[in-house]
């Protein structure tokens, strides 16, 4: 059997395969290194980083749902200073690109974070989380308003020359409109979807299960929505797309590529199986070899119409 070419490239980030690990599910890489060979996955995306350290929400922060889970971690992170001192040294030791996910409470914070990360050589690119409330504008989530999203991306674009990925929120009426706004502002790539807002209730206590009341839904249950959104955005926007949402297997990953994704992120699956990303990468390669497909890039957008 021939050895397929599994490599993909997004905005200059060269990956040995299309498998990336999703922000918030893989820590900063080191946590999973005992279970996974980090050099068998395409790229790692770190936990979301903010300017100042952030405590996150009170517990309970997580709850299982049928075929998924809700999380309301609250973006707890060590802050950029501690990231540079404590986490970057490990990243230097692995031959896998590391993309840093970042977010801000205000427009300025996005710009400042991007400018600081621009100077860190070990960072292969940035993924901008726009699913956060703008505290200066009544808490409207940046990613639900095309103008806000445009402003964030424009500011980040001006602050860094690094590959710029924008992670889109699905909690919108028209994700294509959001995608266009980000593309116009200078994004190099789009990753979608982030989690869907959901809720769980404890009947016995007559209370919400999560301390934060609502949380983000992830896992196999959201895959159909994610697939649909990737398909819609891929048809409308001329940027590479990274598909996220309930990917548990190589089959799932390949489906996302068919609808238009150049790469995919594995998130919740890491909790079921810490070696998931590696297994999916290997299984994808096997699929290609067994089906005589010499290059994984041939599958991008190769969906045929009914």
């Amino acid at each position: 059997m021939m050895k397929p070419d599994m490599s993909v490239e997004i905005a200059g980030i060269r990956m040995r395969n299309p498998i990336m690990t999703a922000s918030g599910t893989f820590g900063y890489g080191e946590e999973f290194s005992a279970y996974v060979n980090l050099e068998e996955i395409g790229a790692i995306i770190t936990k979301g980083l903010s300017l100042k350290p952030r405590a996150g929400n009170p517990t309970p922060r997580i709850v299982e749902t049928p075929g998924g889970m809700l999380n309301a971690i609250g973006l707890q992170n060590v802050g950029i200073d501690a990231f540079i001192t404590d986490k970057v040294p490990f990243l230097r030791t692995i031959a896998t690109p590391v993309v840093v996910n970042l977010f801000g409470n205000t427009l300025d914070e996005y710009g400042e974070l991007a400018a600081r990360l621009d100077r860190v050589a070990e960072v292969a690119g940035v993924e901008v989380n726009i699913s956060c409330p703008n505290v200066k504008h009544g808490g409207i989530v940046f990613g639900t308003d095309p103008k806000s999203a445009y402003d964030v991306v424009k500011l980040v674009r001006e602050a860094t020359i690094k590959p710029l990925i924008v992670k889109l929120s699905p909690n919108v009426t028209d994700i294509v409109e959001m995608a266009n706004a980000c593309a116009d502002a200078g994004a190099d790539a789009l990753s979608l979807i982030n989690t869907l807002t959901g809720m769980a209730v404890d009947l016995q206590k007559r209370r919400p299960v999560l301390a934060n009341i609502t949380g983000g839904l992830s896992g196999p249950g959201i895959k159909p929505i994610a697939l649909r959104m990737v398909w819609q955005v891929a048809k409308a926007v001329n940027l590479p797309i990274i598909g996220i949402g309930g990917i548990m297997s190589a089959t799932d990953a390949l489906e996302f590529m068919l609808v238009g994704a150049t790469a995919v992120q594995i998130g919740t699956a890491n909790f079921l199986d810490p070696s998931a990303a590696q297994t999916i990468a290997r299984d994808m390669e096997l699929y290609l070899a067994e089906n005589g497909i010499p290059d994984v890039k041939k599958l991008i957008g190769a969906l045929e119409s009914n």
Partner: protein
Amino acid sequence: MQFRSMVISNTKISPGYFRMRLTAPRELLSSQPGQFIMVRVRDAIDPLLRRPFGIFDLGNAPPEFSGGMEQPYLEMLYRVVGKGTAMLATLHHSDHLDLLGPLGKGFDPGDAGEEKILVGGGVGLAPLYYLAKTLAATTRVRLFIGGKTKEDVLCVTEFERLGVETYVATDDGTLGASGLVTEVLERHLLESQGGKGIFACGPMPMLKAVAAIAERFKIPCQVSLEAYMACGMGACLGCVVKGSEHDEFHPDYRCVCKDGPVFDFQELRWV
């Protein structure tokens, strides 16, 4: 380590409580008392998340159905409280499970020869058995077990076989003393001088009471916490508890799965 285990036995030891023995890789035998494993209860997406269980016992035994060869094993206790544990209760010999472990920070047994006190409530007892087993040879161990009713008091015989002095209390008085196990513990500490270290595992209200007692009597004390978990390895930050320095402006959250589950009681914020 991620490994596949075979169920050797899955026995109901009390209404709603089970004791499961599983095959284990040899490397697991060097686990610390107080560490835990994350169990994938089914090879499916529902229930989605692994369930954490303290290591109750580890050992080497000749398996029943193969010619006397040594087989390292692991044992866990669980109570059927929801979907995942209900699924575990249906398993029997020769079923397989995917496990992660050993995880977390275990008990620090301290110096041998000094008397140790163990305090357990319900299925929280589990890691205390493995701890008692490692201590019993060199140390005098006293165990205080509590439960709502006699059915919640588990494995007394097993502890006694190790030579552990066991004191039982039930809320309704159906076994042992009537009242809270922490009340029995307190009376014991007032009457005797013994006890150079306390190790506790059980429901949060019990741990809070033990921490208060440890503070009052100035005895070093380690507590093992439970938490709802997703990743089990300090990446998702779902299972945090407040460290002693935590306040609104200076966050100090610890992961029960990685910084714990065992903590020095003074490391945590109890209010």
